[in-house]
């Protein structure tokens, strides 16, 4: 790829321009960080997958989780959105228990249970983003409709709006799901493998759209295999059933740390470091296809 990735780029430190904060946080938890975890262990049924997580995600900053399948990325994301309970330690989301502020959080899971079989039009899937605001019976306002339409335009799926979701390709469906996340207008956006199934063009659209989410005022947490994307994040957490490293992308994504995370050698090339992952024989490999032998 030529030129820098237009991803969720690191911004200069210091106070954000006032114009960036379009959505002031509600008074009761104003000032609380989107995510604050201390000594956190995540897992299922009391069994820890990753322990000793200490991380703070501030407003308008991004955190990428990088690791193999089974490294604990998805479990950490599920803990952030309240779908899994912390096994040990503590975590707050905007100063509250995870899962208690649904109106401020958007979440894209890795797999959708049965969305593909439903008789739903694409636009109806994106409208679901407004349900936390609307509750059981609230009517969609013109502003809600505008948000839905804008999100679909941003992800380039407005022309599919009235088509059945099940008639769309996997990549098109993924863009509809990403449009749903945008239409939520959340203060914390949590994405699990958002580029899965996206072609190069759609990936660029995604990167621009979610960089704009950061500028709008949201914090962003993404689990990804895309090391180039991760390198642009404010913080990167390398996971291999433990926290291998945590820090700014450029500092954390070193060949040694990636070797420890993926069990492979990694070579960076060029001043902006297009990351190439190679196996011990020097062959280039796609980390998305690499599965942790411990699984």
């Amino acid at each position, binding site marked *: 790829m030529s030129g820098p990735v237009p991803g969720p780029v690191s911004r200069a430190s210091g106070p954000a321009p006032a114009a960036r904060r379009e959505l002031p946080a509600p008074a009761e938890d104003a000032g609380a960080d989107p995510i604050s975890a201390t000594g956190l262990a995540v897992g299922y049924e009391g069994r820890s997958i990753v322990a000793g997580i200490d991380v703070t995600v501030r407003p308008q900053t991004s955190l990428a989780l990088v690791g193999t399948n089974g490294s604990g990325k998805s479990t950490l994301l*599920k803990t952030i*959105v*309240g*779908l899994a309970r912390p096994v040990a330690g503590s975590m707050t989301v905007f100063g509250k228990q995870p*899962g208690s502020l*649904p*109106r401020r*959080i958007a*979440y894209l*899971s890795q797999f*959708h*249970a*049965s*969305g593909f*079989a*439903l*008789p*739903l*039009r694409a636009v*109806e*899937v994106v409208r*679901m983003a407004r*349900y*936390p605001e*609307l*509750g*059981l*019976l609230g009517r969609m306002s013109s502003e809600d409709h505008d948000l839905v339409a804008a999100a679909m335009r941003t992800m380039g799926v407005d022309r599919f709006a009235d088509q*059945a979701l099940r008639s769309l390709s996997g990549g098109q469906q993924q863009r509809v799901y990403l449009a749903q996340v945008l239409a939520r207008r959340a203060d914390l956006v949590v994405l699990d493998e958002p580029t899965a199934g996206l072609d190069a063009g759609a990936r660029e659209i995604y990167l621009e759209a979610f960089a704009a989410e950061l500028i709008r005022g949201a914090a962003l947490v993404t689990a990804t295999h895309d090391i180039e994307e991760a390198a642009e994040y404010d913080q990167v957490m390398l996971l291999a059933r433990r926290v291998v490293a945590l820090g700014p992308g450029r500092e954390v994504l070193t060949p040694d740390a990636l070797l420890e995370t993926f069990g492979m050698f990694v070579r960076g090339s060029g001043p902006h470091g297009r990351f190439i992952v190679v196996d011990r024989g020097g062959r280039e490999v796609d980390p998305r296809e690499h599965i942790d032998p411990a699984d």
Partner: protein
Amino acid sequence: MLRALAAGILVSISCSIVGTFVVLRGLAFIGDALAHGVLPGVAVAILIGIPGMVGAALGALVMIGGVSLVQARSRLSSDTAIGLLFVGMLALGVVIVSRSSTFSGDLIRILFGELLGVSAEDLILQAAVTVGVAAVAFVCARPFLLLCFDPEQAQVAGFPARAYHVVMLLLVAATVIVSFQSVGTLLVFGMLLAPAGAGALIAGRIGAMMAWGIAFGAIATYLGLLLSYHLDTAAGATVVLVAVAIFFVVLLVQNVRARATMPKVVA
């Protein structure tokens, strides 16, 4: 006959509303289990002389509670939990009924219903429950849709997935209970699945799927009653048979049309 038609149409309405969610959420097995799980409750009710519906309601609650308990306390998958409760409750029902002097008559009445013997009171109760089921489904439409789409999304969006799942099961139970007198516990399951399933084949929206389900259910009731009158067959079973036949006709027509519109591929 008119009363039977009215009862059948009411069954179609509540079964199509609830059946839509049963089909979309893949709850067919627990729907089947609930339909049979009410058997011991009905049997006990008949033996001790209380209304069958009260017994059916208790049977359904035991079924839902039992499945939830097995799932919560073991690592077994839900279909194992449902299967165990289903067979256990069915066996218990038959054991209880076998103590009755009119064993086979009672059992057949419970399993297959008496569409032609529906009373005016039954009809009023059925209408009331149908309105109630429709009202709850309307109020819970958003969380139900999210549950069908992805239970995790429902939870993250602030609609407790487990609670709404139980509400959905209670709607299935209410539909089964109120319908068993007309079409029986065995056949109500057919009315839950067949019209909504046929609707799912052709509808592009969930509301349309329900509407098609109600239409197919009503047609099946009318045709089924007509056929059973002329052929002298069991009314409830004939209605359900027509409903299932409609499903397969819709499937066939859809496949033929899809094949006809498919672009020809030159090898």
